[in-house]
């Protein structure tokens, strides 16, 4: 084969290589949301209330314990799971229970949910229960949110900052 043909062949091979590398380095784009969508995110990390109150041990119980464990108060460490219920425009989105972490269930509950929602004005209602001894919900917030395309609406929960946070 003539040299010209050889170099042409090499040129084609290099060009093909460059096109494949150059194209797939950025394309096609990944469509993450629809053109008229925003993103609703729920994310929290919160330790629920302990399941049961501390209790004074009876003298008989104390006697049965090994000496180094003989503390007067018996404080169970297990925490309540955290239940979160979210309504968007009066439609139920989630009603989920997030168990506490840890082998003895004494850690924080954490949860994460993501959901694309249509842009526009919505009413959002979030209810939280972090205490098994309370029926229903002990925290609640409702808000009107104006979602622009590509905007993130974040639901968080932190009792020290007033409970349910929507932003």
């Amino acid at each position: 084969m003539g040299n010209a043909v050889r170099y042409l062949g090499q040129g084609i091979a290099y060009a093909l290589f460059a096109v494949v590398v150059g194209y797939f380095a950025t394309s096609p784009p990944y469509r993450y949301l629809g053109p008229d969508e925003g993103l609703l995110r729920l994310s929290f990390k919160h330790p629920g209330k302990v399941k049961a109150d501390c209790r004074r041990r009876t003298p008989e119980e104390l006697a049965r314990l090994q000496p180094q464990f003989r503390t007067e108060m018996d404080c169970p460490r297990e925490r309540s799971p955290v239940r979160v219920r979210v309504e968007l425009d009066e439609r139920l989105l989630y009603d989920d229970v997030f168990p506490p972490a840890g082998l003895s269930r004494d850690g924080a509950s954490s949860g994460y949910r993501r959901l694309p929602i249509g842009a526009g004005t919505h009413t959002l209602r979030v209810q939280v229960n972090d205490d098994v001894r309370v029926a229903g919900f002990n925290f609640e917030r409702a808000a009107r949110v104006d979602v622009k395309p590509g905007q993130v609406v974040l639901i968080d929960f932190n009792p020290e900052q007033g409970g349910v946070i929507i932003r």
Partner: protein
Amino acid sequence: MQTRPILAANDALGRAPARGAAARAFRAAERALDRAFGPEANPLRQLGALAFHLFWIVAATGAYLYVFFDTSLAGAYESVEALTAGQWWAGGVMRSVHRYASDAFVLVMLVHLARELAHGRFRGFRWFSWLSGVPLLWLAVAAGVTGYWLVWDELALFLAVATAEWFGWLPGFGAALVRNFLFAEAVSDRFFSLVVFLHIGVPLMLLLGMWVHIQRITRPQTRPEPALGWGTLATLVILSLVRPAVSGAPADLAAAPESVPLDWFYLAGFPLVYEWSPGALWIASGAGTLLLAMLPWLALARRPPAARVDLAQCNGCGRCFADCPYGAVVMAPRTDGKPHGTQALVLPDLCASCGICVGACPSSTPFRRAETLTTGIDLPQLPIGELRARLDDALARLSGEAKVVVFGCDCAADVRSLAGPGVAALSLPCAGMAPPAFLEYALRGGADGVLVTGCPPHDCEYRFGARWTAERLAGGREPRLRANVPQERLCVRWAAAEDLAALGHELAGLRATLALAPAEAGVAPARLRREPETGNG
């Protein structure tokens, strides 16, 4: 007289390389590129070396970028922008080459994997090369993803969140992991220090993995042929000038971009976090990795027995050690008290049973009177004595003029189809198994000429079969073909499986030349050797 059919040595073991549809497609592409680049600079024949080359380009450009990169949350994005726009002619090109060379690295790696897979080069003795290649896939992706984080644009944020969502599925991490990227106060300079650390540390681990990967290969080719190396670099620079790498909008924690420009070489898995689910992606990628890693053991193929050393014939010269393409021979202290110092030792697990060591051993000479010929290192399935017996037999049956013995290879053009009254064909596991003395023996034993063939040098199933054979015959490597062997009676013509017709022409040409100049009748060594056996049917 006992008849010994001339068969390919390893027929029964199914040793011929894979020739499925994928293998044929790769071979067609390889042969097409042979014509454009020449076999020695064919990119498909040095993908591993190309990957190494690209790694070094990435490392060098990365070092430049590191000098200008600001490892703080506030400064990262700006510093990358300054490189891209402020000094497009240097920093911008460096950045683009850094990205495109990284992409090319993955591309080359995947084609390398696909090629080894298509050619069936993952089984048997190649298990180590295969298995040690698998973690490189993960390390390469991890290195690339951490690089995209550093830019801290919308893509980086998308990746950070998606990574956290993906890892959040794992028990040890938990759903709270993603919180690190949802709140401005959570993303800190410390995060950037961590990412910089990862983006340097993971590639170093990748390099270590690459080093391990080639440990069981003798003389691994880690540098591409220079023209190919420069051509690749030039292509990447041109691509960088035509289409510079740029950042997206700065990361904004309150925004979720409708679409992100994905680098599919590194980030193709991320959409699956959402299209499937984090758990499904873990299961699929975990199962895929496991399957890939176990492939050498899933493909049940009988392995031919490993080469064996016969200490009585081994003088510790080390030629087999030097020629073995897979480091399957080591030189060990002598165990039989002989004064040679060392002896050859075969590591059976690494042995390809190619026989290249047999062709290297000085004891592999047929000009010996021993009734059963043995050599220092031998293949149990085709011992050197058996080879000589087959050759004797073939020589005895040659008739007519221009008698030729063809030494071929099971992996290349099938020489058995060339056999006829005036042509004897011996197919060996690899052309490199034929000791040069055997060619001389054939010429002295009645053949007018010898044709040596096998896979072309850059296409050799056992890497060095053709190269060592050519060097031995040209006198540049031990064991050398003796200088008094008439060169005009010897023809070396490499021929891949597809080149059978061309090989046939070569043979016809050789025979035409030989017919004009018949060999003077010499003393047939075969008869010499049989003298002591008189009276013994």
